[in-house]
């Protein structure tokens, strides 16, 4: 996968759409700055699926202490967190 913010955001959104569909929700209108947990589109277990996919897809590990709303609460924050973790930002 490309390590460019816009490409990362597209990949994350596609994964959220996939997870939300499995829960009977439609996340196609989700914006990059929407607070994901607050939308109710995916629950905690779905967020964990998203995190597991995020780590596996970009080959990095998120420490428990950094599993916060500030770091991972929005699509945009997730992409920026990844780039920071890879020292690309």
């Amino acid at each position, binding site marked *: 996968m490309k390590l460019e913010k816009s490409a990362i955001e597209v990949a994350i959104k596609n994964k959220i759409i996939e997870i939300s569909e499995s*829960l009977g929700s439609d996340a196609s209108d989700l914006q990059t700055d929407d607070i994901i*947990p607050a939308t109710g589109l995916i*629950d*905690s*277990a779905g*967020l*964990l*699926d998203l*995190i*597991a996919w995020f*780590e*596996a897809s970009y080959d990095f590990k998120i420490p*428990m202490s950094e*599993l*916060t*709303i*500030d*770091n*991972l*609460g929005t699509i945009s924050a997730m992409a920026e967190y990844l780039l920071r973790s890879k020292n690309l930002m």
Partner: protein
Amino acid sequence: MALSIHVPRINNNDDEVKVVGIDVKIGAHVKAGQIIAQFETDKAVMDLESSNEGYVLAINGEIDDIVKVGDIFIWLGASLDEAIPQQASGDAVDSTQTNAPTAKARLLLKEYNLNAHEIPQTGTRLSVADIQNYITATGRKPIAVNSTTVNYQEPLPTVTGELKTLKSEERGMLSTVLWHRDVAVPGYIEISYDVSPWEDYAKTFGEKHNLLLSPLLPLMAWRLVELSIEMPHINATISGSQRYEYQQTNLGFTVQAGQTLYLTVVQQANSLDPLQFVNRMVELQRGAAAHTLGAQELQDATICFSSMSRWKVSRHIPILPPHTSIMIAHTVGPDGLGVLGATYDHRVLNGGDVVTVLRKLSKPNPSN
């Protein structure tokens, strides 16, 4: 001296098998471990390997023959001129000369703790009918099951199928279900509750600690840990005729990860504070999602919590894991009404105990 190789047993229900392949001829030299024949039942096919090195002296069957399990199928000798024992030359040794019980009969003997020699035998082998007649005549009862060992002998269905080995988590589930069925005396009680106080409390807690994931279910599970300290008899099981109260609380929490249902366990949960407990549960859920949990993270639960609110079911009745007395069953139905149920071991707890636990669990701890 010539060595005999016998017709193998493929499963417990078939005392006869069909010869579907013979890979050697009389006079051939075979090595130990070499496949020499194949046998089939309507459930499976099995290779027969040579147990020793030697020359094939005799083959007691042909392809498509139906042969009896345990009969001699092949004789091996150290040389081609070695003699086959007199009684066995030609056809296979007649197994009917023995009174060995049939496979089904052996299972029945075990179930009733009987000795084959004490039962009159009407045919050439001790049969199920012989044993059933004896049981009827003597009024014998099956022995009580008091083990949690997985030793499951369900007769195979008559419809053609294939046996598959269970994965470790599937064996764990089988063990749990059998303990629930054979040892515990399960009951189930549920109450409805207002979800607002818990949701408000979890929201405040999550914002205070900047948590990404909702701490609602972990906090409810934490409340159960608190109750296990306040009411030690709910964190217990039965041993013999005594209650065994655990000195620590190992909180079991079900996590569905893909097709796998885990019972993750927070060891010594009573030694943690609420935030530590919430974070530990998230760690376990992450481990379950990645299928990287270790054995210590999946065993020795003493008290359990399960939620199916994700699926908005109106009720679910969990199975009790071995040596636990209560598993909470939480859900929020499609109407938004909270439901707290509990499967409990009636040997340890009564309905009043369980209602007390559920009522206390329906609200956050007022002292928090």
